[in-house]
C-alpha cells in the first residue's frame, strides 16, 4: 500500500511533485563512554508514504515526537533516510550526490519554526533574502539582485526600504515573512513549512497564514505544512496526514479527516482541540486519552496506539493495522476504524 494511491488531489492539477514511499528514519542510541556502541535505535519515522501534487498543500499533523519534523527534514535531505524512497519530480533524492542535490534544492525550499533562530542576526535582510541567489550563482550582485530582493519583500508584505535592517529590528511575524521571502527567492515548486506559525501570537499568525495562501494561489507552489495545531492545518491544507509515533495513522482530504475521522487517535486529537465558542465548548465531549506516548525507542507491538486506545483488542497487539480504506472512504490504520461524531452537538 502506498499513499500514492490513496487520495485524489483536491486542488492540484494532478501532476505528482513529491512521492515518498516507505520512508524510514532511525536514529542510533549510543552508550556513554569512549567506545559509544550503538545500544538501540529511536524509530523516529517508520514506513511513511505520502505524495504531494503540484500547487497543493499536504498538512502533516501530530504531537511532539511523532516524527513529523523528521519526515520533513528527510524530504529535504537534511537527515539521510535510513531506507525508503523520496522522489521529487520523478528523481530519486536519496541517492543524489551533493552537487546534484544542490540543483534540486532550487525547487525544494524550507521555512523553519523559530524566526529568531533561522535568520542570521549579523546579516541585513537584503542579504538574507538575496543569499539563495549567491549560493546558486544566479543574478549578479548589484542592481538586478537588489530589485529582485525588493520585489520579494513586497511580495510578502514588507517594505523594501527596510531591507537594510537587521532581523532583530523586526517582530516575530515580520521575521517569519522574511523567512518566507527567502524560501521563495528561487521560485521553488515545493516548500516544506515546519511549524511556520506556532511561535506567533494569533493576530499575527493569521496574517502569515493568509500570506501563505495568497502566495500559493499566485505562484502555484506546493506546501508540505507540518504543524501540531489542527485548526491551522484545517485552514490551509487540501489533504491531511495524521502521524502518531512515527507512522501515518490516517490520511485523506481535509473533509475526510475533520468531518469523518475514523481512527481513534485522530478522533481524540480533534476532540481535544478547544473551540473558541463557549456554548459549543460546554456541550462538546472531550476524549481524554490515558497515559503518555510510548518511547519511540521501544514502541508497542502491533498497533502503536493500542496502549492508549479505548477500542484495543488482542488483535491490536498481534497485527499491525495497515493504512487502508476499510469502507470509510479514506485510508485509516485501525482494525476497528469507524466514523464517530465529534463536532456535532450531541
Amino acid at each position: 500500500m502506498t499513499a500514492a494511491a490513496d487520495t485524489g488531489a483536491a486542488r492540484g492539477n494532478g501532476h505528482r511533485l513529491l512521492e515518498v514511499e516507505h520512508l524510514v528514519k532511525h536514529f542510533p542510541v549510543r552508550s556513554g563512554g569512549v567506545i559509544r556502541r550503538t545500544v538501540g535505535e529511536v524509530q523516529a519515522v517508520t514506513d511513511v508514504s505520502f505524495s504531494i501534487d503540484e500547487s497543493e498543500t499536504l498538512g502533516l499533523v501530530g504531537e511532539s515526537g511523532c516524527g513529523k519534523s523528521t519526515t520533513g527534514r528527510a524530504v529535504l535531505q537534511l537527515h539521510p533516510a535510513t531506507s525508503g524512497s523520496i522522489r521529487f519530480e520523478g528523481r530519486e533524492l536519496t541517492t543524489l550526490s551533493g552537487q546534484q542535490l544542490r540543483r534540486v534544492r532550487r525547487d525544494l525550499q524550507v521555512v523553519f519554526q523559530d524566526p529568531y533562530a533561522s535568520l542570521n542576526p549579523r546579516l541585513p535582510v537584503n542579504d538574507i533574502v538575496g543569499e539563495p541567489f549567491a549560493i546558486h550563482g544566479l543574478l549578479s550582485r548589484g542592481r538586478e539582485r537588489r530589485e529582485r530582493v525588493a520585489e520579494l519583500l513586497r511580495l510578502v508584505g514588507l517594505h523594501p526600504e527596510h531591507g537594510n535592517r537587521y532581523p532583530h529590528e523586526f517582530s516575530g511575524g515580520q521575521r517569519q515573512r522574511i523567512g518566507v521571502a527567502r524560501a521563495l527567492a528561487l521560485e521553488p515548486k515545493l516548500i516544506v513549512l515546519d511549524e511556520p506559525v506556532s511561535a506567533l501570537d494569533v493576530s499575527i499568525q493569521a496574517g502569515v497564514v493568509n500570506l501563505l495562501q495568497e502566495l500559493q494561489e499566485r505562484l502555484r507552489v506546493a506546501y508540505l505544512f507540518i504543524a501540531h495545531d489542527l485548526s491551522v492545518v484545517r485552514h490551509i491544507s487540501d489533504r491531511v496526514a495524521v502521524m502518531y509515533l512515527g507512522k501515518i495513522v490516517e490520511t485523506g482530504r481535509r473533509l475526510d479527516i475533520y468531518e469523518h475521522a475514523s481512527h481513534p487517535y485522530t478522533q481524540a486529537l480533534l476532540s481535544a482541540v478547544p473551540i473558541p465558542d463557549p456554548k459549543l465548548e460546554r456541550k462538546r465531549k472531550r476524549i481524554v486519552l490515558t497515559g503518555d506516548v510510548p518511547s519511540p525507542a521501544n514502541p508497542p507491538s502491533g498497533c502503536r496506539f493500542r496502549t492508549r486506545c479505548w477500542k484495543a483488542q488482542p488483535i491490536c497487539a498481534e497485527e499491525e493495522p495497515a493504512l487502508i480504506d476499510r469502507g470509510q472512504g479514506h485510508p485509516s490504520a485501525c482494525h476497528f476504524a469507524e466514523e464517530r461524531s465529534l463536532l456535532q452537538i450531541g
Partner: protein
Amino acid sequence: MATPVLEVSDLTVDFPTDDGVVRAVRGVSYTLAPGEVLGIVGESGSGKSVTSLAIMGLLPRTAKIRGSIRYRGEDLLKLPEKQLVSIRGKGIAMIFQDPMTSLNPVYTVGYQLAEAVLAHHDVSKKDAMGRAVDLLQLVGIPNAEDRADNYPHEFSGGMRQRAVIAMAMANDPDVIIADEPTTALDVTVQAQVLETLEKALEETHSAMILITHDLGVVAGQADKVLVMYAGKPVEVGSVDDIYEHPRMPYTLGLLGSMPRLDAEGEKLTPIQGAPPSLINLPPGCPFSPRCPLSRPSCDEEEPALYEVGPDHVASCHYWRELSGDVAAEEIFEATAAELDVISVVAGGDDATAAADDAADQRTAPPNPPPDGPAGPRDAADEQPGDGR
C-alpha cells in the same frame, strides 16, 4: 453576589529601565467571587502575567506597584513579607507555564509536595508524605506511591504539570492563579491537564484566574473573561457576551484571526500591525493604530471602560458601531484592502522588540550588529512604517 475573595483595583506596575519606564500594567481592576473562574486573555506583552505576579508579590524589587489588591479584605500590597508568606500557597496558589522550571530538579516530586503541605500545616513528615501521595493520586498519576519517589525529569510534561496542580491544591487555596498552564503542552496532554484543573477546582472549591492567549481554552473553562491590551483591560464580561457580542474591535479581531477547527476555511482576518511599545505610549487609545474603526478623536483621548451591557464593559468610543454583532471580516477586511503593503513598524509583537523600538526613537539602536554597516541603518530609523 457573594463577597469577592479577591479584589484588584486600579493596579499599575511600572518597570524603570535604561530606555525609560515600561508601563507594563496601566490600571487593572476586577473582582473574583468565590469559586468563579476568570479568564484573562491577551497577546504576548499585554501585561497579563505581570498582573498575576503582582498579586503573588513575586515581582522584582525594581517594579513600582500602585493600586490595591484585596484578598479577603486585606491589601496584599501593604502586608509585610512575613504575612504574605502565610498567604502564598495557602490562600492563593499559583501554577506556572513551564512545569520544568517550577519543580526543583534535585528533589523528588513527593518530597516537594510534602514540603508544600508542611509549609502551612503542622503535621509530621510522614503524614505530609502520605498527603503528597494522595494528591498525586487525585490528579491522576498512576502508581502514585512509587511515582512520588521519582524526580521531575522522570515525569512526562503532562505529568509534571499535573504534579504542579497537585502542589497548588495541597493547601486548599481560595484562589488558584494558572498562568498559561497548558501552553507548552500537546493538545491531548492539554485535555488531560484541563480535566485535572477542573477536578482541582471541584475538590478545593477554589476560584481561578486562568491566564492564556488561547481563546479556545478560555471558552471552555471561564465564567468571566477579561481581555487585556497594552497593559489595560479593554473588555470585561461574561464568557458568552465576550464571544458572542464583543464590543471592542480588538476582541473582535482576536476572534476573527483564529482559525476554527469546526469551520471550513474562509479567509482569516488578521489585525494589522503590532502591539505598541509600553514605553512612552502615545495618548489616546493604544489600539487605535491597528483599529479599523479608528478616527482622529481616538488618538486624543483614551477611552474609559464603557458600560455596554449588563456586567459587560468595553473600552472603545465607538462600541455602538459593533452593537449589531458584526463579523470580524466586515470591519477588518476594509482596512486590509487599503493597506496593500503591510505596515512595518520596527519593534513588534513582543516586549523586547517593543523596547528596541522605543530605544530606536531616541538614541542609537541597541545591540548594533558587530560588523554591520552603520550608514544605511540611520536612514531606516526614521520610522517609515508609521506612514498610514
